[in-house]
């Protein structure tokens, strides 16, 4: 049975096959100087900006 957009079902299915999901490698990450944050809010805002910057550059390129 196909289950669509059911988070509980997804959790159950993933737990049937435990183990780390392989992390895909990609190139095209922007380089930046060290960032220091004094709150999670600061970090989250910066991270959102970083993702927008990545997308402005056309996204990362996944290695096959």
């Amino acid at each position, binding site marked *: 049975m196909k289950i669509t957009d059911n988070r509980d079902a997804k959790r159950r299915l*993933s737990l049937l096959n435990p183990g780390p999901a392989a992390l895909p490698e990609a190139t095209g990450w922007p380089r930046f*100087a060290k960032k220091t944050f004094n709150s999670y809010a600061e970090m989250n805002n*910066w991270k959102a900006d970083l993702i927008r910057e990545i997308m402005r550059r056309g996204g990362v390129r996944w290695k096959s």
Partner: protein
Amino acid sequence: MEELIRRFNKAGVRYLLIGGQAVRLEGVPRFSMDWDFYIPPHDEKNTALINSLMGKEADIPLEILGRKGEGFIQTYSTTWGIVQFHLGGPGIPPFAEAEARAIMLKTETGLQVRAMCLDDLIRAKEAAGRPQDLTDAAYLREKKSVHKKPQR
């Protein structure tokens, strides 16, 4: 990132993997673009050791936590990927306590990584409270409940 973790392990760096990569290595099918390490916030020797192992990748040295809590997250863009050092944070227990309860996780290549235990990770995720954190926490709680069920 495994190169950096190998260096940490070999040199005896005090660190705990937290965040999305710890969640992933617990078996949750999700992606994270950075690697989060919890380190003791006032351990100058450990901080210096990390700086020496980071070498030129640390364009500005990692620092201990400021008197007013400044710099509780310090982020680096490295050739290994994005590395974030956490020196505390909401829902994160004092380092020594978390370290005493630490577990070893394995990467997909089998590299051992010292990580925050499941209960501490769940509490940290729930305290962080972003939608992704709450989804992660729900997965981890489900994993915990599955492992608690008696085997038939």
